């Protein structure tokens, strides 16, 4: 079932057409990898979906409903959670406080921003979540994020997205700056996320990772989507040549024919 559909998304910055035209769909429980060189428009595309800025033209549908996304809050409310490279967590806050940042459980709600945090609920929910997502290393919900490793931080950020029952989780370079073992941990986690029924849009430079977890590959070049293939129908070398633009026309024809 279709969860997210983009139709003819366009975005310019001054005279630079960062996004010329982008259309694709994302199905339930699917991991789609978004590939492309630097400046291909990947960032612009995911920023448009996650509400960092609004698009100039085009339509976004969530579960068949046409939506307008004007802020990160809009995107979150629609069930689109984005996890940015290393900007997702506040290192000086505890795991529990990070997990609920912006959606804190409170008592006396009428006090608005001055409402007291429901600390017991915060800690219990955080512990339960850490257990459920199988972060086995017995992380303490009260531990500061600054004491965690890079992989643990990514896992926390992803589980936060899962916790709010996100329909679409966008992972922006989730394995950047991670060690080999931690990278495997995060990739395993992506599979678990899919198994739990969430859809994932994975942005990465590492094609090897794509072949380990993705169902489908979308390649962007110069603000356009130039290829879209299922992982089963392609191989590493082909994808690499599409990204760099070598022999692109032939591949494009092949893609269109499908």
């Amino acid at each position, binding site marked *: 079932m279709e969860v997210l559909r983009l139709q003819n998304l366009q975005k310019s910055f001054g005279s630079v057409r960062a996004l010329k035209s982008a259309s694709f769909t994302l199905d339930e429980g699917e991991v789609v990898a978004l590939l492309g060189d630097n400046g291909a428009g990947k960032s612009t595309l995911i920023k448009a979906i996650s509400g960092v800025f609004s698009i100039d033209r085009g339509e976004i549908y969530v579960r068949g409903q046409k939506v307008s996304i004007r802020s990160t809050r809009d995107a979150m409310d629609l069930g689109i959670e984005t996890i940015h490279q290393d900007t997702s967590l*506040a*290192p000086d806050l505890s795991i529990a406080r990070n997990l609920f940042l912006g*959606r804190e459980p409170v008592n006396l709600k009428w006090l608005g921003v001055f*409402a007291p945090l429901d600390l017991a609920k915060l800690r219990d929910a955080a512990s339960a979540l850490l257990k459920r997502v199988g972060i086995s290393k017995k992380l303490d919900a009260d531990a500061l994020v600054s004491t965690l490793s890079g992989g643990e931080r990514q896992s926390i950020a992803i589980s936060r997205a899962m916790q709010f029952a996100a329909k679409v989780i966008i992972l922006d370079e989730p394995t950047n700056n991670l060690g080999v073992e931690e990278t495997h941990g995060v990739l395993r986690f992506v599979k678990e996320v899919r198994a739990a029924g969430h859809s994932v849009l994975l942005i990465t430079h590492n094609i090897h990772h794509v072949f380990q977890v993705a169902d489908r590959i979308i390649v962007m070049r110069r603000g356009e989507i130039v290829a879209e293939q299922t992982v089963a129908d392609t191989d590493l070398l082909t994808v690499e040549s599409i990204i760099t633009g070598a022999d692109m026309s032939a591949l494009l024809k092949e893609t269109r024919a499908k």
Partner: protein
Amino acid sequence: MPVGKRRSSLIRSPQFSSLIMFIVLLAVFAIADANFLSPLNISNMMAFLPELGIIALGMTLLLTAGEFDLSVGAVFGLAPVVVMLLVQNGQVDIGVALLAGLLLCVAIGAINGLIVTKIGISSFLVTLSMLLVVRGAALYITQGFPLKSWDQPGFFVTLLAGSFNIGSFRFYTSLWWFVGLSLLAIYVLRYAKLGNWISAIGSNRNAAVARGVPADAVKIWLFILTSVLAGLAGMISAFRISAASPVAGTGYELEVIAMVVVGGTALTGGRGTILGTIVGALMLRSIRNGIVLIGVPGLAYNIFVGVIILAMLILHALLQKNAARS
């Protein structure tokens, strides 16, 4: 967290090391001069303490959110001057004049906050310029002369600068202001939703924004709060000494920031502690007072204050390193 672990993290916390340092300082001063802990001297220290302490509370929240304000000392001077000019030359009721003074502080804080967040200039530069503008305004509108402050007894004088005796100690109502505002600040920073936002903004602004936290609005309100507290402190001071001087509060901005960081709040944002700030305020107050009492020459005492502040900061940095290693 197990009890043992919690206890060791408490001992390592910056508030705790500040507290130990404070107690050591008190002991040194008390031994060096018996008058240090006399009721008269304690009363004296407690008269000054709230005025800088109140500003330090706002500054702590602002620093925790990753910004700071150098214009507080100038606001401390300008606010009471404006109030007194309105009363004496404008024949305005004292209550209305006080309100107008506070509204002026709101405006100054809002301008600071808007320029920092919306135009994106660092708070150091924005508030440094504001310091000059505000101090200059205070000097210009008074032509450099101090004004006689409101000294007729009445509701507002009692509210801001009334005094009362407990045994042989004499305290000002400003102490209640400081205590009340401290409790509020502790609540907001540690237990309220807003406190979570403030720490998150200072720790990683982009992460907070990505979670829908209105970072700019929070910062603007904190600039306003800091400015208002500085103005309030200035009014308390002017009422207490019955004079409003256009140069009052000169250098307070650095003294207040010193109180905050000595207490353990990180200058880089994300980690703030109101309890630490209270200890920091007490410490700087007693250093200034104790140094005079034990006979350090007046002109030399900034040397001592500077050295003690540096020692505190080095201690915090070492503890931090230690904690990171374990």
